[in-house]
């Protein structure tokens, strides 16, 4: 088991290597010079003299290969340098932003699971009943409404009109409600339908018929047998979403002034803040790999058939 995890963790190295290479390439293909972007953002006219000085300060006047090797060396030592924009160590800023994003991601996942698991099951069990209709309506709504618009609508009704919740910012649990709801909507839409389909599929299986014949109660069949298998694709989906959420939810963070990772990254892109972009790519790659690994481990736990296969490999 430990060996398996270890092996998966080692896979981070080539993936991160490729990710940094691609990022480095893309940044340098872009026609925007980071020194120029810095000066433009500062409202200073980029005179040639000033540009040369900034390029030198950022180390952009060195050969590309040297720049790349330096970047790799630094990343290998987990040193991400200082932000061009703020002149502060990138890692400090990231550590400052990440908790906000993690908080939002975690609550959104928990809330989506709490809503979509019962709703998905009920929609399958009471197929074509009113509850199925409701779940379908929620799914259509959630899947088709643009996230920023939903955010504005929620703010308008719950913060401005009803005055129940704050418009924006981070701090108390009240600040969490609207962004969590906005983020969860699309997940609830997706996962409710997903779960409904897989529960319906399982209900057609012969083992359910046998269980019924044996006189086992419906509730037991559902909770002990059907759900255990039907929930696997749901867990996979959730795990992948977690990876995505942890790297920042740009739109929601923007709409709700949430001081998270996504907002930080977008600003870095506009300012061509290379050290920040590189750090972000590194962390994102690691997060995706770790989330994938967790998904696999959960599946291993949930479904013995996969675990047997997994063991056979090692």
């Amino acid at each position: 088991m430990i060996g398996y995890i270890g092996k998966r963790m080692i896979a981070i190295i080539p993936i991160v290597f490729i990710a940094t290479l691609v990022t480095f390439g893309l940044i340098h293909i872009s026609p925007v010079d980071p020194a120029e972007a810095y000066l433009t953002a500062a409202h200073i006219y980029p005179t040639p003299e000033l540009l040369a000085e900034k390029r030198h300060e950022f180390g952009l006047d060195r050969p590309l290969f040297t720049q790349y090797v330096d970047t790799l060396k630094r990343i290998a030592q987990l040193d991400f340098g200082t932000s061009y924009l703020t002149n502060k160590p990138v890692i400090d800023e990231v550590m400052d932003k990440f908790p906000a994003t993690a908080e939002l991601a975690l609550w959104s996942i928990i809330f989506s699971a709490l809503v979509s698991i019962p709703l998905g099951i009920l929609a399958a069990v009471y197929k074509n009943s009113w509850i199925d209709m409701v779940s379908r309506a929620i799914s259509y709504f959630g899947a088709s409404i643009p996230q920023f618009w939903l955010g504005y609508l929620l703010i308008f009704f719950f913060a401005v009109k009803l005055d129940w919740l704050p418009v924006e910012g981070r701090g108390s649990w009240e600040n969490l409600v609207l962004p969590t709801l906005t983020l969860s909507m699309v997940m609830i839409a997706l996962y409710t339908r997903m779960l409904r389909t897989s529960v319906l599929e399982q209900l057609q299986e012969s083992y359910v018929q046998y269980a019924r014949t044996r006189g086992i109660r419906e509730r037991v069949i559902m909770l002990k047998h059907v759900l255990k298998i039907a929930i696997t694709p749901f867990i996979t989906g959730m795990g992948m979403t977690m990876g995505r959420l942890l790297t920042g939810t740009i739109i929601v963070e923007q709409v709700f002034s949430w001081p998270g990772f996504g907002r930080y990254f977008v600003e870095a892109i506009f300012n061509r803040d290379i050290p920040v972009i590189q750090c972000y790519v590194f962390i994102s790659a690691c997060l995706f790999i770790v989330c994938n690994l967790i998904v696999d481990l959960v599946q291993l736990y949930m479904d013995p058939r996969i675990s047997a296969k997994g063991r056979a490999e090692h």
Partner: protein
Amino acid sequence: MLGQQHKRSTTLMMVTTLLLLLFIVGCSNKESSSASSSASGDQASSAKSITMSWPRDIGTMNPHTYNPSQLFAQSMIYEPLISYQKDGKLEPALAESWTISDDGKVYTFKLRQGVKFSDGTPFNAEIVKKNFDSIMKNKKTHSWLGIIGVLDKIEVVDDRTFRMTLTEPYYPVLQDLSVVRPFRFLGAAGFPDDGDTSKGIKEPVGTGPWMLADYKQDEYAVFKRNPNYWGTAPAFDQITVKIIPDAETRVLAFEKGDLDLIYGEGVISLDAFQQLRENDKYVSELSDPVGTRDLLLNSSNPKLSDVRVRKALQQGFNKKAMVEGVTSGLEEPADTALSKNYPYTDVDLKPIEYNVEQSKALLDEAGWKMPAGGTVREKDGQKLEFELIFDKTDPIQKAMGETIQAEWSELGVKVNLTGLELTVQIKRLKANDFDLYFWYNYGAPYDPHSFINVVASPGFGISETLTALPMKKELDEQVHAALSSTDEKKRQELYTSILTTLQEQSAIVPISYVKKTAVYQKKIAKFVFPANRDENPFVGMQLSNP
């Protein structure tokens, strides 16, 4: 058995991961909730405080550096020697008075007595010199500012007297000293040990009316009154700046009453401004022009080198209708490249009026004829076709570009629109690689001298745009003479001549005057737009009695 062990270790892994995540979240939560409660606890609820929003974090509050510090916030803490007021009047700030030698090279400042920094330390010639020295250590960074190139010597004459010597006369020295950065003053306690502020400061200590009391990056900043402030104390105790990057959210927060003021340029959408303006619950105001939106017609392009073509293009679109239609009255149609509220610009210039017939006649006269059955004019087998580059994130530029494209197509002129990222756009301006370009002047206190400076100095893209003007050399000489002139009357004459030439040559087409907007709750009884484009709007602000 193996399976069981397997399951157990997997469960352990998952639980640990979850706990770790919750731990990270929990730790940060405590810290941010305590901080934000202090920010929100003091906000709008108190009658003696103001809450406003700003799109970006206020930054490091270093008076001598640029990014990411926001100008308005720097101007709350730090003060200049001289302050720029309405219509370009220069008034004493930290300098009580000043004298200029006859040759225009020596400036002697008498410093205001009794001024203290927010930490109680005295403001004197010594600390002025310390600040100047630190600024001049990074001369290159500030090279965009004219004074940097001519500043030769800085001396402390006595505790209250400070002297500056220039290498050559340069009249806008005083204007340059009134800008928000870099010539403002940090107290001794803020200086790093090596005295070089370019790498950072220890703490933001200034002489201004406000002090930074609480700050959380990307979330909020709280300013409290400086108890040692020498001038008239502000009419309220506290200003909270909430960082709200999204324009629509800003409006919603304002409607809810979380914000007392939305202020700035382009901080809310045109639609939102209209909607708030029509609501009696709020007050909305527009400032005097803070800058001009111009369209550059690049004369170095052979097709645009003929003044008749440039004039025809300026006459060929309905500017008034376009500006009013696109900006819903937020901007004002402009007839001259500089508005008249700067020094030396109140000059009688003849506007180039909208006249399609005359425009067509001018194009015919210049040899650009419409081919039979064609839609685009031609001359010597070349089509009258241009590329207009614009900032793709600016909806106003895009809408104006489309209007101009449509109106000029009626004349037989084809315009191709290219939306670019701002940095790329500026790069193409500097490389003189464009036909048509939306350009803005710098505003007060930088203009009119910065405007005429870029007309003559290469490297900014403007001088290059004007290269085909037959009197370009003469124009450049006039600019240099105006900048170094010590005679007020002669300077005015030179400005009049420069502005008249530019108006007649129609290479810098004035489109509209850009204005600042302010929308505020009725709790604010009096609001005054600052004359200096970059200053904060809290000077002169009064609150209504609760």
